[in-house]
């Protein structure tokens, strides 16, 4: 009974706290400073929302202590490490395209040095990828983006999520670094986002293809535009990457759903509520 009361007290907290803390999750507009362990990623999200343009983000392996924040555990012996907090003041831009994003990245690199980033473009969108990084001894080396690795994914019929898992497993196998797949959409599910109620399985595979190109090829088959963040978890006892695939968010934080689906007869679109 006491346990239930405690739960209910926690539930009650949800009525008050969300509105207070919400501001901490929103990204500031251009011209205002962003303080974050991944300020470039946060700003890319802001641009994605504002311009409905895919801007993906990939993080380098962070091994130099100057690039990491260390937190000692309250108990136990595991040290927690995260990307170093940085402040980024992005320049104002009129539109999002390759030159403008390159200008943003140059400003970022000028403010922070290393790790540095660069931008490439594809038919799918713009991609912020790591350029140079410091190794453990402080030497500046090429970042060797994880998704530049050639991968093999056996062709098979799988659900979209199983296919995404297979892709991450292939990158893990090729690089030796665990890549965990993740999709933060609670509803619709990843499979629903991908198929829009159509065929629940897809047949897909690649043979010795650049992982980024393979990922673009895979996500291009989705009924919903999916962007990605490849984030690194650098704690000594728990080092891995998370490949977050997510729909673009509107300013209201609603997900843009089924936008790549010209005719989705099976999708159950929610009726917009009266405003």
């Amino acid at each position, binding site marked *: 009974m006491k346990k239930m009361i405690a*739960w209910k007290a*926690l*539930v009650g*907290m*949800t*009525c008050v*706290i*969300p*509105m207070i*803390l*919400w501001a*901490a*999750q929103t990204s500031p507009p251009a011209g205002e400073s962003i303080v*974050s*362990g*991944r300020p470039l990623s*946060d700003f890319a999200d802001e641009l994605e929302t504002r311009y409905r343009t895919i801007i993906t983000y990939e993080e380098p392996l962070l091994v130099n202590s100057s690039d990491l*924040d260390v*937190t000692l*555990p*309250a*108990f*136990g012996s*595991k040290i*927690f490490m*995260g*990307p170093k*907090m940085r402040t980024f003041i992005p320049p104002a831009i009129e539109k999002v395209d390759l030159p403008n994003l390159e200008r943003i990245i140059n400003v970022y690199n000028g403010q922070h040095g290393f790790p540095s980033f660069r931008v490439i473009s594809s038919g799918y969108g713009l991609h912020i990828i790591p350029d140079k990084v410091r190794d453990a001894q402080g030497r500046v080396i090429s970042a060797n983006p994880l998704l530049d690795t050639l991968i093999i994914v056996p062709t098979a019929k799988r659900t979209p*999520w199983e296919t*995404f898992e297979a892709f991450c497993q292939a990158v893990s196998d090729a690089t030796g670094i665990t890549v*965990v797949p*993740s*999709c*933060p*959409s*609670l*509803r*619709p*599910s*990843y499979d*629903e986002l991908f198929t829009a109620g159509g065929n*629940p399985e897809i047949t897909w595979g690649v043979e010795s293809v650049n992982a980024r190109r393979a990922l673009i090829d895979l996500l291009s088959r989705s009924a919903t535009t999916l962007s990605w963040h490849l*984030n690194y*978890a650098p704690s000594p006892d728990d080092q*891995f*990457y*998370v490949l*977050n695939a*997510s*729909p673009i*968010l509107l300013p209201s*934080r*609603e*997900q843009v*759903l089924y936008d790549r689906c010209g005719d989705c007869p099976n999708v*159950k679109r*929610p*009726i917009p*509520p*009266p405003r």
Partner: protein
Amino acid sequence: MKRLLILSVLLGITSAPAVAQYAYTSTSLTQGSTNIYASTHVEVDYYTAYYYYVAMWSELDPNCSVNGYSSDCSTLQAVASGWSYGSSSASWSASVPISATSYVVFAVPEVVEYHEVWLEECYCYIYYDPYGYSLYGGEWATPYFYVCAYGPVVYTYTNVIPLGLAYSQTTVCPFPTGESSTWFGWEPGDSPYYMAFFVAGLQANPNLSFDDRYVYEDLNPYNPFDSCKAAWGSNSPFDPWNPPAGMSGAVVGSIYYGYGPYYGVYYGPYHNGYGMDAIGWPNSYSASVTWYQNQMRNGYPVPSCYWAAYQHMYMNGCPGSPQQYYEPGHSIGGFITSSTVYMFRAGAYATR
């Protein structure tokens, strides 16, 4: 003369008045209640009196035959009665809570005519005055005038005629008063699966049926919140969860209904159910739950975290504009501790 009068009545000269009567109902629907107006109106061609009786009945089962008093599924709400004279109307109105008591409301005015005919009887002498004037009184209108020997004597003729029932009906569109949740189970599969299924139901008078109506959710204007990401910030490699798209579905009443091809969950029958609401972290996001729990076991940085949102519930009219029937809405969400995952929806809970 008296015999002539009786004869004239029989011939219809002073027959029962022509009386027309009708009834109607109207409703003004507002959130939570409806204002119902019922009226009976009687028109007569001369002075009379009538008794009116207006009854308002609500019928909770739309399949019942609407036949007034004898219907077992009808409930008398109120009556209005009294005498009225001449051409007039009698009306009655009331506010009825639409969600709890009414589906079909109809007015049954019963008008009973009770009219009186006043006749004057007298014995008169008729005179002729070529100058148009009489010393004995009387009238100037004609050269003829009369003088009553006695009287007049008033005879009252009364007649009670039940005019029967007039009937009108109006349909009130009911809305639920709230939401109910029943935990059904977890997403099939081995742990870690953190998606809990709740059967979403509608709270209302059990006699009400919302079959074929359409329910949908809306998370606005309240912003959902991910306290896990807020606590860890950019130290978490996982993106914050995106607000879920609102669920929607038709009220299916008493048929078995599956949530969808991805979960393979089927349930039912449920009265006034409209779907299975999946609350929690799907398999595609469960790695984050495991990671947060691992961090909590090391005491970093908080012992628990949660996500929460408020759902506003809407239902379409019948027909008519959708209305929000659950204000301010119910909360959905989930908690993570180092060892437990806990989901909730509209007062129902699930722990894993």
